[in-house]
């Protein structure tokens, strides 16, 4: 399907204006961050642990409520929405987490189906009952990440890389236009990182989904990003294209002690 053409004429997918977040503990996690993401971009967010990357991503779909500023999704201010309007907007934004956040005791298929919760029938969903169409679509989503044969297994029986691919299917199940990926490969074996990143790239290239992804590994950044923003202590520190990211810039973002060596993953979160 030609996804880009089917969208409204607007070119921008996400517009973040002067976003700020102060936690009740007094920590200022984000300070005056403004970024505009156009449709079809693969935006990578760089920064040390605690620099506000996670907070930024979670403010976009309002898992965290920002204390200042606005976020617009396809021109609609998500920071002004509540209740069912907010949930309808969240449906269009798939999210992938560092810790996969699957329901461990549920089957792989049930985990994927939970991506359809936003549009299904409320009472039916509480009894974990889904329509045949949705089950078929869930199987198709699993097929895309190469896990069709694991549908009936308990989610925690899968390896980390496979679990993250299940999480990608769950996001796909939402039929989203935007994917937020919060350190999607930081908990994975380095050898498996490309296997997950390639699937996220495919959503971006083939389906035209807009991706915002936080990453640590400089090789991955250069390989997948179409644009980069860097955060430092909650503020926007650098913005540019992957080919402009040189060692000096890298050290400016990560501090003097950082080594932009191959396969180095700087300051992974626990």
């Amino acid at each position, binding site marked *: 399907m030609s996804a880009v053409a089917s969208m409204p004429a607007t070119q921008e997918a996400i517009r973040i204006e002067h976003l700020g977040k102060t936690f009740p503990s007094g920590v200022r996690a984000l300070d005056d961050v403004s970024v505009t993401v156009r449709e079809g971009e693969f935006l990578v967010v760089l920064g040390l642990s605690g620099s506000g990357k996670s907070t930024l991503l979670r403010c976009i779909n309002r898992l965290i409520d920002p204390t200042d500023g606005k976020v617009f999704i396809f021109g609609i201010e998500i920071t002004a929405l509540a209740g069912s309007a907010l*949930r309808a907007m969240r449906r269009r934004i798939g*999210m992938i987490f560092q810790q996969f956040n699957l*329901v461990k005791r549920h089957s792989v298929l049930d985990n994927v189906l939970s991506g359809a919760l936003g549009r299904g029938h409320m009472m039916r969903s509480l009894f974990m009952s889904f329509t045949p169409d949705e089950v078929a679509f869930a199987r198709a989503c699993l097929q895309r990440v190469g896990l069709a044969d694991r549908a009936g297994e308990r989610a925690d029986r899968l390896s980390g890389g496979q679990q993250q691919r299940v999480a990608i299917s769950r996001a796909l199940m939402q039929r989203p236009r935007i994917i937020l990926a919060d350190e999607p490969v930081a908990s994975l074996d380095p050898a498996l990182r490309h296997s997950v990143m390639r699937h996220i790239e495919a959503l971006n290239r083939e389906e035209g989904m807009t991706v915002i992804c936080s990453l640590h590994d400089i090789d991955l950044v250069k390989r997948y990003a179409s644009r980069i923003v860097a955060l430092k202590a909650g503020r926007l520190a650098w913005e540019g294209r992957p080919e402009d990211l040189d060692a000096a810039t890298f050290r400016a973002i990560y501090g003097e002690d950082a080594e932009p060596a191959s396969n180095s993953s700087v300051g992974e979160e626990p």
Partner: protein
Amino acid sequence: MSTAAPEINPVHKAVLRLQTVLLDTVLIASLLLMGELQWVAFSGQRGSTGLLLSAEEILKVLHYGMLALVAFFIATAWNLFYRDIGCSPGRAWVRGEPPWERDLPWQHTLRGWFLALFIEFSFFTGWLITEVNLATFLTKFSKAWDIVRGLLHPSGAVLDQGLILLVQTVFLAFMATAFAIPIAFLISFLAARNLTRQSLAFRITYTVVRTTMNFVRAVEPLVWALIFISWVGIGPFAGVLALWVASIASLVKLYSESIESIDTGPMDAIAATGASYLQVLRYGVVPQIIPPFLSFTIYRWDINVRMSTIIGFVGGGGIGYILKPRVDLGEWGEVGTLVLLIAVTVWLMDLVSAKIRERIV
């Protein structure tokens, strides 16, 4: 750091001082009273009957008011001169240990000696008040031998009736547990701290539920049994109701604590799909809490079987109902039969519940 208050306003300072002195007064007064009690006990004073005063009688003649006043003066003085003689326990509790005492072993501080004496006095006083008597414990065993012999030679006379009432006991426990589960399940979500932070209404509900449940739990099932016996009459139904209420309160505590320890990641993931809050609970919370819930529930059933015996003592049905009169009459052989039946049941319950828990967790 947040622990070191940068500036304390005068009102706050006065409140802290008052807390310190009051705490010290209570501690010192307790020490003085325990001291007086020991003094009277060991001085060999005799009461009007000519016998040595019992601990209960001594408790009546202690100089509470005077010693509290003395304690207050000592506490005040201690807190005035704490820089010279060492920090008082109340001050250390309220304001934190002063830095110059932090690394000293307890023998080198006045507070350490005070607390050591306090602990020592507690044991002596406890010994006197609970009338511990090692001599009788070690020499008068023969009187209890009748009971032990009866228990070891169970009589068959009550076996039929005992077995029938044993069935009643097990079902009594089952009904109480089964009907407690759905109610405790629903309430536990409102009693879980991590699920009740989003609005003031939820926070108030949380506090009300927690307080109510703490109160219900503080009342013994035996007391609930007495209440329900006068409500619905003597019999197993009163026992079911008593154990039901007690089970709800205890399951709510266990359930809500396991909700509080869940991984919030799946909740975030489900919320991010655009799911409603009920769906987040259903998919993000419920699957995680099912194993601990099952485990706690079986454990509670186990407790209820044991409790229902005692409930029967006061008229709540079950095997305890026929046990009580036999204890009163000294029919130790029949008591032995009933105790044996209970022991076998509890042992079987233990075995089964351990096996089930092994399987599901």
